[in-house]
C-alpha cells in the first residue's frame, strides 16, 4: 500500500519518503496469495475492485513490470443452503455493476474443474474475470516506478518516534529523521503502534494467517478455488505451484506473530484433500505466515485522524490490502493533492466506530 501510494504521489510531483521497517516485501504485501477479485457483498468494494483489476491488467504497460497476472476467475463453493442464499444475494449485486459472476450447479463445477469432489457442496458461484498476480514483482514494480518519479525509499528504517511540530511532524528512525508536513500510516498490521506514537488509538488488531506452496505442476487449474465456510482458498500460480491458505484461529490479538504452525499444515492438508482428493499426493515445499490487519466491521480505515491533523491512516484492510492497493492508492493520492475525494474516505473514516454507522462487508475470506 505504501509503495503504491508513493508511486502515485511522486507522479504528481509530491516529495515522498517511504520508511520501511525491514526490507521491501517483508510485511503482508510480500506474504499474501496474490488474489485480485471483484466478488464482494457491498457496492463500494465491488466497484473499487473492478477498477483494481483493470489497473492490474494494465500494470505491465503503465509500470513496466510483468506481474505474472492470470485472469482465471474465482470459484466459491457453498456447503449449506444458507451460504448459497448469501451467494445469490451477492451475485445479484455484482451483476448490477457488470461483474459477470454467475451461480454454478455442481455439474457446472465439474465441467469447470473436473478434479473437484463436489460431494460436500450444494452449489457455487464463479466470476471468470477475477485474477491472481505474483505479489513480489508487483512490489518491485511500484518501488522502481516510485523511485523513477523521485520518491525516496528507505529500507531497514523502522519509525521509532514521531514528534508533532508547529507545521508538521519529525519522524525518527535509527538511521535519521525526516521532516514531513503530512504522514500516512500504511503500516498494515503494525499500524496501531505507529498511530500510538502521535496519540491516535486504532480499533484494529493483527491476526496470523498462514499459506503454503507446493511443488510445481503442469497447468491444470484455471480458477482460484475457495470454500466459503472454512476460508480455504487455493490457486495455481503461473510457476505451476498450488498456493493457498485456510483460516486457523489465533486468539492472541496483542502482537503480530509470523511463526509457522503444524496445525495449519494439518488443516490445509485436510481441506485440500476434501475439495480435490488427488492433491493428497502433491508435495508441500514451503509454508509461511502473514498478518491480517483486522477491523471491527471488516472494512478499512482511511483519511485524516480526527485528533491529529496531518496524520493520515490507510490501514485495516482485513487481509485484502494487497488487492485493493492499486485503486485505493490512486484515489488516496488524488485526495492528498487537492483533487476530488472518493466516497470511501467518508465510508471508511475512523470516526464511524464512535458514531455507530457501520456497513458490514461479509466477503472477507481467509
Amino acid at each position: 500500500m505504501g509503495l503504491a501510494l508513493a508511486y502515485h504521489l511522486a507522479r504528481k510531483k509530491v516529495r515522498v519518503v517511504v520508511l520501511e521497517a525491514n526490507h521491501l516485501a517483508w510485511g503482508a504485501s510480500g506474504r499474501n496469495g496474490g488474489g485480485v477479485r471483484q466478488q464482494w457483498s457491498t457496492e463500494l468494494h465491488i466497484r473499487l475492485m473492478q477498477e483494481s483489476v483493470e489497473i492490474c491488467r494494465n500494470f505491465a504497460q503503465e509500470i513496466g513490470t510483468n506481474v505474472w497476472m492470470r485472469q482465471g476467475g474465482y470459484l466459491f463453493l457453498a456447503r449449506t443452503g444458507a451460504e448459497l442464499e448469501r451467494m445469490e444475494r451477492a451475485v445479484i449485486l455484482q451483476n448490477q455493476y457488470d461483474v459477470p459472476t454467475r451461480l454454478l450447479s455442481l455439474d457446472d463445477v465439474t465441467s469447470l474443474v473436473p478434479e473437484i469432489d463436489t460431494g460436500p457442496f450444494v452449489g457455487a458461484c464463479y466470476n471468470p474475470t477475477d485474477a491472481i498476480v505474483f505479489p513480489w514483482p508487483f512490489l518491485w514494480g511500484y518501488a522502481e516506478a516510485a523511485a523513477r518519479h523521485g520518491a525516496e525509499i528507505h529500507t531497514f528504517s523502522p519509525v521509532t518516534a514521531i514528534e508533532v511540530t508547529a507545521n508538521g511532524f519529525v519522524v525518527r528512525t535509527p538511521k535519521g529523521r525526516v521532516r514531513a508536513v503530512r504522514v500516512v500510516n500504511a503500516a498494515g498490521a503494525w499500524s496501531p503502534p505507529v498511530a500510538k506514537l502521535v496519540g491516535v488509538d486504532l480499533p484494529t488488531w493483527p491476526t496470523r494467517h498462514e499459506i503454503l506452496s507446493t511443488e510445481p505442476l503442469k497447468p491444470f487449474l484455471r480458477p482460484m478455488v475457495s470454500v466459503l465456510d472454512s476460508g480455504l482458498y487455493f490457486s495455481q500460480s503461473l510457476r505451476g505451484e498450488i498456493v493457498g491458505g485456510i483460516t486457523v484461529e489465533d486468539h492472541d490479538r496483542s502482537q503480530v506473530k509470523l511463526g509457522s504452525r503444524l496445525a495449519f499444515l494439518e488443516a490445509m492438508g485436510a481441506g485440500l484433500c476434501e475439495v480435490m482428493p488427488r492433491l493428497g499426493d502433491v508435495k508441500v515445499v514451503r509454508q509461511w505466515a502473514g498478518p491480517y490487519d483486522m477491523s471491527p466491521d471488516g472494512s478499512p480505515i482511511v483519511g485524516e485522524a480526527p485528533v491529529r491533523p496531518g496524520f493520515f491512516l490507510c490501514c485495516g484492510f482485513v487481509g485484502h490490502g494487497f488487492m485493493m492497493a492499486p485503486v485505493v492508492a490512486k484515489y488516496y493520492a488524488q485526495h492528498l493533492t487537492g483533487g476530488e475525494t472518493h466516497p470511501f474516505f467518508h465510508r471508511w473514516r475512523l470516526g464511524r466506530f464512535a458514531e455507530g454507522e457501520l456497513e458490514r462487508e461479509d466477503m472477507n475470506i481467509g
Partner: protein
Amino acid sequence: MARKVILCRCEDVTATDVARAVKTGFSHLEEVKRYTGFGTGPCQGKECLRGVALALAALTGTPPAQMAPFTTRPPLSPTELKYFARRR
C-alpha cells in the same frame, strides 16, 4: 568462466540475475530471494543458498559469515499433503 552461470537450478536464477538484484539495490539474501525467486523451488535453498551467498559476497564485499541466511520454512523436506490430512 562460461557466460551463463546458474546458481539456483529449481528456478533458473543466474549469476547475472543476482548481479542485477544488487545493482537495483537489493543486497540482503531475503531481498535477493524475493527479487530473483532463488531458493523458492523444490530444494528450498538447500542447493543454492551457499552459491548465491558467495556471489553476493563477491559483489558487495560483505563477508559470508556476516550474512544472515533467509528464513527456513517448514517442512524440512517436500512432503505429500495427505500425510498432514491424516493427522487430524
